[in-house]
């Protein structure tokens, strides 16, 4: 029973992290832009929504404001990279550090509790969480899919794929990069807003390591569920975020120290990045050996072609 409860909790939390994982998917996979802003923007979304809720704003407006705040942060990262010509990793890091101070300013203190406040989840009747939230998350996924199949979506995807090509067809890649990073961080921040409302507080350090968790979700999802099409890839990311939470919950169930979680996450990412490469090179080697056998079988011991 206890285990089941823990599992349920991890799925609930996983669902809220799906938007963050989709955000990381946009920057990391679609734009090929390893954007570290998310460590800061996740907290920004949480901070903005928590503060607004304590000031009496409607939770939905507060959550959407979190999205906008994240998108604004992403826009600045995009501007730093495209107009400021700063390396993409560095623009994200700079923004992440800047956001730490900004997030403190937003909250005025390192922690904003939401106990007793009504949140977006207050609207959900007891026991319907795992019914309503998945539907909402899937709707978000489908909207993202649809967006990625519009003309602007095509331009965005091509920007990550081949900048030179998409420029030669009249797309300003600076704009598509800024748009993509803004959208990515908007989703990450909204995820932060949801997590804060779910756990009952926003905390200055809640975004630490978020990029790696996002990456872990994306990579685990892709490895298990495949990513041939956009539809499949976003589905994989969605499920990956939930699987990741379940893995972490299981690790905790096995009496693993909570302090080691980040280390485990890092190890999962490393393994997920390296294993497919090893698998591939083994496969290639085997194919080559087969081919060598094949080629050798057509010549006799003196090197003459036996078919000739």
């Amino acid at each position, binding site marked *: 029973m206890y285990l089941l409860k823990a599992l349920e909790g991890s799925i609930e939390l996983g669902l809220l992290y799906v938007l963050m994982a989709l955000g990381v998917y946009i920057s990391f996979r679609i734009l090929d832009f390893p954007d570290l802003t998310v460590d800061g923007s996740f907290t920004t979304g949480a901070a903005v929504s928590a503060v607004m809720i304590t000031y009496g704003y409607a939770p939905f407006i507060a959550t959407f404001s979190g999205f906008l705040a994240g998108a604004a942060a992403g826009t600045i990262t995009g501007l730093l990279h495209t107009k400021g010509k700063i390396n993409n990793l560095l623009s994200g890091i700079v923004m992440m550090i800047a956001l730490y101070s900004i997030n403190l300013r937003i909250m005025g203190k390192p922690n904003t509790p939401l106990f007793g406040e009504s949140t977006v989840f207050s609207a959900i009747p007891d026991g319907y969480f795992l019914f309503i939230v998945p539907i909402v998350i899937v709707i978000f996924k489908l909207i993202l899919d649809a967006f990625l199949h*519009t003309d602007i979506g095509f331009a965005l*995807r091509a920007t990550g794929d081949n900048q*030179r*090509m998409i420029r*030669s*067809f009249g*797309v*300003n890649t600076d704009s598509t990069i800024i748009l993509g990073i803004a959208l990515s961080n908007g989703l990450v921040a909204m995820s932060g807003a949801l997590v804060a409302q779910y756990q009952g507080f926003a905390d200055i350090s809640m975004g630490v390591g978020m990029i790696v968790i996002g990456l872990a979700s994306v990579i685990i999802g892709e490895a298990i569920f495949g990513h041939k099409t956009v539809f499949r890839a976003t589905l994989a990311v969605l499920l990956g975020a939930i699987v990741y939470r379940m893995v972490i919950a299981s690790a905790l169930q096995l009496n693993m120290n909570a302090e080691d979680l980040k280390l485990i996450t890092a190890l999962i990412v490393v393994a997920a990045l390296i294993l497919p490469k090893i698998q591939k090179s083994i496969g290639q080697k085997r194919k080559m050996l087969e081919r060598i056998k094949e080629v050798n079988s057509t010549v006799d011991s003196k090197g003459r072609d036996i078919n000739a």
Partner: protein
Amino acid sequence: MLEINHVTKLFNANTVDEKLALSNVNLNLAPSDFVTVIGSNGAGKSTLMNIISGVLKPDDGNVKIDGVVVNKLHEHQRSKWIARVFQDPMAGTSPNMTIAENLSIAYLRGHKRTLKRGLNKEKKLYFKEQLERLGIGLENRLNANVGLLSGGERQALSLLMATFTKPKILLLDEHTAALDPSRAELISNLTEKVVKEFNLTTLMVTHNMAQAIQLGNRLIMMDKGQIIMDIPPSKKKGLTVEDLLHEFAAIKGEELNDDRVVLG
């Protein structure tokens, strides 16, 4: 159609690496001219292409399209009129998108991109018709990722994507050089076909002298940042590789010496 007036490009001015890539170059292309450009390494061919497409800005002089000076326009802004096929077959397409999606991107050259759906039945049918022009069976693989295509197939697709919206100017930058001979010939023939069908004003850089002679109605030779030879349509017919080499020797007082030039 395309005018290049007194264009000069000086790289690394006032340093030991200073290089005069283009020196007071003038070139005027009439509508539906198909000009082939030859010249040794460092002659300024690529710089010329980059100046026309907007990748580089001239240090002096100007570029006019249809009588309008475009010096200040960026590459993506000029792409409304100028299409380009690169030497690298990977450069002209987006590998992780399908053939249909790539064509859809190309289809909107010069148009605003909105939140409309990128593909629909009508468009797919149109793309299928266009792909049939290539005659290599791509019309049956609309939903295949471009990354799965061979170099030759990708270059054929790049050529179609560059041309089927009928741009004012087509720039071909040694677009057959990275292909094996049979593929190169296929692309070469396709180029001739689409340029004629769409009636495009074309500038083609090549290292293959025979190709330069075979294609187009006008041939220019560049050397050390200048156009040293301009063979008009009237004289281009019947031109041979020997004529070109002879002419070069006569102009420069030295033999054409470049490992990359393919004579034949």
